[in-house]
């Protein structure tokens, strides 16, 4: 099975999107993150980055901001939200790839 992880991985990612599960989980996560204040924190950080780069603002790209804010955004997600969504994802993977050995 390991040697096929390439094909299986693609298949699984496709199924994740096509079944609507990804969208469902994204909406759940969006609400939770918003309630927890995560979006406001990330927004503040982004605006701080913009101000720090005020001298070269015309050349500031989306990628520039994204590169600087992503580590902060990832680590700022509350652990309980992360674990909750992670569990749903693991359940999805488990349903899609039952633990049968070949």
């Amino acid at each position, binding site marked *: 099975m390991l040697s096929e992880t390439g094909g299986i991985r693609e298949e699984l990612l496709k199924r994740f999107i096509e079944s609507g599960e990804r969208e469902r989980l994204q909406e759940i996560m969006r609400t939770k993150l918003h309630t927890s204040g995560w979006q406001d924190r990330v*927004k503040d950080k982004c605006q701080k980055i913009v101000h720090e780069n005020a001298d070269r*603002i015309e050349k500031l790209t*989306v990628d520039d901001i*994204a590169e600087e*804010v992503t580590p902060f955004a990832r680590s700022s*997600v509350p652990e*309980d939200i992360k*674990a909750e969504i992670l569990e749903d994802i*693991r359940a999805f993977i488990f349903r899609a*790839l039952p633990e049968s050995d070949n």
Partner: protein
Amino acid sequence: MKIKSEGSGGSGPGNADKKVPNPAYDELLHFYEGKIAALRHARDALETAKPAMTPPTTPPANGSDRGGSQQQDNQRCRALLALELLTELIDDMTMGVVFDTHFEAKQGISVCANCSTSGSDMCECLNCQRSFPAARFASHMDKCMGLSSRRTATRR
């Protein structure tokens, strides 16, 4: 018979209202208990996932234990895949915020090609006399003048 006071304001012996129900306290208590339960649940889930997510310390020795480590590898792949999908979801939401911030920043420095009005020049609303940056003026007037369908505006 002694009445136990449950943390409501003032627990001194001379306090007349020992058992006054404190709804604010109860609500906060309930909220934090919920949080604690969620964190416990999260910790348990992570404990379960831990063996699958830690890399092997010793390489598989021989063919006889191939089956076991094969399954461990499968478990590890699943766990890493789950983490990857989660990170993608987080990054998606981050990018939403990044795009909005970037757009607002670029609006602030926008300049009209015709009349050279900067995006951050202030305009005064004719109706309510409040000041707005040019880039947000149109959407305010839209709501304030009530020409397009107003939702909850009151007529003056």
